[in-house]
């Protein structure tokens, strides 16, 4: 089984994000691997260990992704592809999906595993769109993957009405949540080995995508006009002291002031 895992470099959401004049202030930002993609990497590595899968990752954009890709190598991923092109600067989910389609078609993969969404956009579209472009079956929001045989996997998905158990015919695409596993910490030996591994860097033309292509593969259908600061909540009233007294006081405020009880 050949697995393709997607990884995206995203801004670290734990840090303060400032907005000025409609743009995010770059100063002070740090970039990390998208947390859900780390779950996707872990899922792929587990399938390598338990089911002899071959693992490749692909990352699109992000500039210098060497550290992130080496981290994934150190976790157990065997091959890495990085697609970088100035034309991708304003890429939206459909563009990412169409680039991934080209990567998929060059590699004869059986399974694509992506994180359920990227932490920078919170969109959750790319993996599902990739499947749709390829005409492949797809399950999103997956919390478990079991291999049935060479052609089939069984996955569990968190749906609206409960947990759905779905059998997928390969090749297929799944997007995973952080409930699926706990990503491993790279060990020293893996980190040392990772430094020697090459990264296959390519641009869009190497994938056969022309930026002025008639099919518009690299043309986004949406663009971010501006960023705005989120409406922040202000800290309200905080009560300390005798539990019985302050709790009674808060309950009466919930009733009389906030009108929510």
């Amino acid at each position, binding site marked *: 089984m050949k697995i393709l895992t997607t990884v995206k470099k995203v*801004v670290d*959401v734990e840090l303060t*994000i400032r907005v000025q004049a409609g743009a995010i202030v770059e100063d002070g930002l740090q970039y990390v691997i998208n947390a*859900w993609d780390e779950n996707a990497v872990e899922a792929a590595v587990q399938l390598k260990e338990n089911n002899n899968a071959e693992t490749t990752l692909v990352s699109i954009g992000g500039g210098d992704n060497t550290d992130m890709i080496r981290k994934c190598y150190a976790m157990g991923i065997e091959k890495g592809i990085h697609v970088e092109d100035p034309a991708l600067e304003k890429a*939206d989910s*459909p563009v990412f*999906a169409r680039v991934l389609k080209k990567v998929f078609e060059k590699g004869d993969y059986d399974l694509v595993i992506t994180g359920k969404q990227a932490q920078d*956009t*919170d*969109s*959750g*579209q790319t993996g*599902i*769109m990739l499947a*749709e*472009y390829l005409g*492949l*079956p*797809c399950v999103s*929001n997956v*919390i478990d993957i079991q291999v049935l045989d060479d052609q089939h996997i*069984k996955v569990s998905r*968190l*749906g*609206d*009405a*409960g*947990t*759905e*158990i779905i*059998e*997928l015919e390969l090749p*297929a695409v799944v997007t995973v*949540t952080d*409930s699926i596993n706990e990503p491993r910490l790279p060990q020293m030996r893996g980190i040392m080995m990772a430094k020697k591994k090459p990264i296959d860097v390519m641009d869009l033309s190497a994938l056969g995508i022309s930026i002025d292509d008639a099919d518009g593969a690299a043309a*986004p*259908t*949406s*663009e*971010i*006009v*501006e960023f*705005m600061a*989120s*409406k922040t*909540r202000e*800290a*309200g*009233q905080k009560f*300390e002291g005798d*539990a*019985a007294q*302050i*709790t009674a006081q*808060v*309950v009466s405020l*919930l009733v009389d002031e*906030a009108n*929510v*009880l």
Partner: protein
Amino acid sequence: MAKILVVADIKNDALKDSTTELLSKAGSIGAETAVVAIGSNIEALISGLVNAGSDTQYVADDPALAIFSAGPYASCVADAAKQFEADQIWFSFSESGKAAAPRVAVQLEAACATEITDVAISGEHVEVTRPAIANKVMQRVRINAGQMVVVVRAGAFEAAEGITGTENVVTLSPPAVDVKAVVKELISDASGEIDLADADIVISVGRGVKDQTGVDLVKELAHDLKAGFGSSRAMVDGGFMAHNKQVGQTGKIVAPSLYMAIGISGAIQHLAGMNGSKVILAVNKDPEAPIFNVADYGIVGDLFEVVPILRAEIKKIRA
């Protein structure tokens, strides 16, 4: 006049309020509206679809649609969108909507935006507003395609008073079954539980409740208030709460009238799932816990002491 197709949000054979909220918003921006309802034995919902404020009702009613499967579900929506010649297709915030919207967008060659909180049509341009980066920023996004598919964030729009619709039912043919993604089983969430997404009050537990005894203590309060009962990531990882109870960027996003965070420190991923709530009450013994930065009311104290008092006080005022 823009034509907006709203995908009916149906759960446990009932039409959820979000359907009315989306139709109200669509009507308020002067659009011609239609709704598409997908399920099995949903004939009884048709009058509700009309009353929610739709001018046309596309109905896909087939036993094969009883359990959600993203492929056939998306096909029904795309079919209705084509028949209605919709400019915009709006999904409510749900796992079904999040799974189907990108599929529909690709099928229609439309743009796609998820988690939107507002839509503005000015002349030729459509723009949406949406949060990003774990709710830390908002984005204004211009749509550069003739059609647009969106998923609307929970609680973004309000239902209007006194709306009416026109009954005009169009029956859709049942879609092909997805033979490459076969739903073998649905393990239903415990019945009788209040849905987090719909609850007017949501009470969530975090690491501070420690173990099952703590969970059960807070659950009693949730039971008293008929509140949805949620959780931080820590209690799910600890095995005390089910995956589908997790509130946060990665789990459910809720926007109730009252959110009670009990023993939750307030990690950024958790806040992203609940900071749209109208009023937030936090109970935590650490006065420096970040949850107090977003809470309207904060009680610094031992939750094992505070929660029973909360129950008693609430019982008192409700008596």
